[in-house]
């Protein structure tokens, strides 16, 4: 273990390079996100993820946001364990009939002010499952949605873009 710690210390962090205007979209976005988040929310935005019946593809990419290469927490954005600690609900999936009540209760448990982000094509309108009677079809059929992030699933860069759009519209 000591060897690995030492090597990591010597080699420096894996987290991708500090933002510079001419580096790719991810880095550029990350810089804008940092400034906007700080200005509006004083460095901190807590996100509660709710899977309302997704195929788990969106969850995999949301997980990736937390890995050392994207390192979401450096921007003051973090996922929290309870809706009671959250500012934002990040909802994935086509909202199955079986998850409807749990989603509504999670929303009610989240203190105001709060925002809802519908993540992925399913969360927009049911996506490929939209004809099924087993789903409600789109988060906006259940909760007021402030932002949709498209993709099947949205990759980490698209998720960062979405978070940026959110913090820029939060009043």
């Amino acid at each position, binding site marked *: 273990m000591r060897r690995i710690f030492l090597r990591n210390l010597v080699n420096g962090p894996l987290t991708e390079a500090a933002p510079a205007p001419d580096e790719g979209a991810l880095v550029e976005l990350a810089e804008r996100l940092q400034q906007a988040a700080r200005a509006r929310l004083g460095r901190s935005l807590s996100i509660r993820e709710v899977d309302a*019946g997704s*195929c788990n593809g*969106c969850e995999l990419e949301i997980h990736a946001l937390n890995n050392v290469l994207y390192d979401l927490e450096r921007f003051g954005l973090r996922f929290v364990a309870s809706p009671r600690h959250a500012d934002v609900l990040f909802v994935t999936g086509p909202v*199955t009939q079986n998850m409807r009540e749990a989603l509504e209760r999670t929303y009610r448990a989240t203190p105001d002010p709060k925002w809802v982000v519908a993540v992925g094509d399913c969360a927009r309108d049911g996506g*490929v499952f939209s004809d099924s009677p087993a789903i409600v079809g789109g988060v906006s059929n259940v909760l007021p949605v402030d932002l949709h992030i498209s993709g099947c699933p949205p990759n980490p860069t698209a998720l960062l873009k979405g978070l940026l759009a959110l913090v820029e519209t939060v009043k």
Partner: protein
Amino acid sequence: MKRTSTEVDTSAWRAAGERLRAGDASLLSLWGEPGTAHMALLDPSGAVSLLHLRCADDRLPSIARLHAPATRLERAMRDLAGLDAEDAPDRRPWLRHEAPYAFLPAAGESLHQIAVGPVHAGIIEPGHFRFTANGETVVRLEERLGYAHKGIDGLMAGAPIARGATLAGRVSGDSTVAFALAFSRALEDALGAPVPPRAVWLRALAAELERLANHLGDIGAICNDASFVLMHASCAALREQVLRAAHACFGHRLMMDCVIPGGVARDLTADGAQRIGSLIAFLRREFPPLVELYENTASLKDRTVSTGILSPALAKQFGAGGYVGRASGRHFDARRSPGYAPYDVLQFDVPVVQSGDVNARVWIRVQEVEQSLRLVEQIISALPAGPLAAPLPSKAGEGIALVEGFRGDIFAWVRMGADGRIERSHLRDPSWFQWPLLEAAIEGNIVADFPICNKSFNCSYSGHDV
């Protein structure tokens, strides 16, 4: 794959149940459509028997009464197809959540219940766990699933082939390649359609990249549930490199919609082979020190060794697939038997251990990482040239496939109509036979060890709930 497909009467249906009870065959799946029940059995020889039972008055004799692994499948069949196994030991609804749910009782002194979910603390899928505990010790865990039920079987009925493939790729996102492959191979089996050699090999490349990404991510995540964050952070970085290589090669990080009936949708990009070569070198350099770290950290091993033991007898009875079965002595890998191309000409080992604890499941996955690296190397060096897909004939027929996803064997059944549309399809995730075993493995462990046990099984909620 050798298979028979037979219309049976209720006595033959029961006789199949007796064979399952005696351990002479494993249950691959049991499902229904209005008026007809279907069952698939795997013989020890690797041959598959498909049984179809027309149900008078929508009733049939229960298999679960003879063979417990059929219990949830029969409950789901009742919810989805209205077929009632009337002498079944458990007739509560499963995928359809309407009435209040009656959890099984646990009687004794000083017992208390803990209800968890369907919304969990982490970024994970929805499901409900009802623990009955005595102090810290779990006396009974009962799972309640179905929260991610999207009605995929229903959407498949009457769908065009392309839509069927899109849906199959979204049964369980972490296994999108494996599900698309299982569905495509079942459909090709139904139509008698050949697949070009290059497509067969590219499918295997995508499947092994998917296995690598999941194993690497999950090995770290299991350690994270023992609060050993260094492994989690390091393994997640390796997983990310696999996803980026997948994106560079196939244009999608999870490789969704790459496998299509008839072949593959996308060719390996021009620099794809080189990119894969450097990925293998990178993983061969970076992964072994992490394995050593896992092995040499006593406080971590203390959490994984002898925790959540699954007995070989239960693994065999339930036909547990993947690392869950192979960590508990079950020698089964669908790539080997019944087997499918191109694995018949590739060299790889199927690691098996007997101890059945969290550590064994981690260890199987560690060794499978190395096997997948070997396979990817062989695939890249022998990738045949040629077309990516062949046109599909239009005809009626029934087909099946058994594909080894990272989590275990995925069974697919498709019945095509003469109009070129899917009449019915059924996709069975390995989790159907793993979720019930988690209930058994956690018994007698402390509540605080549930997350690490659960992650070491890593069953799919969406794949199970369909």
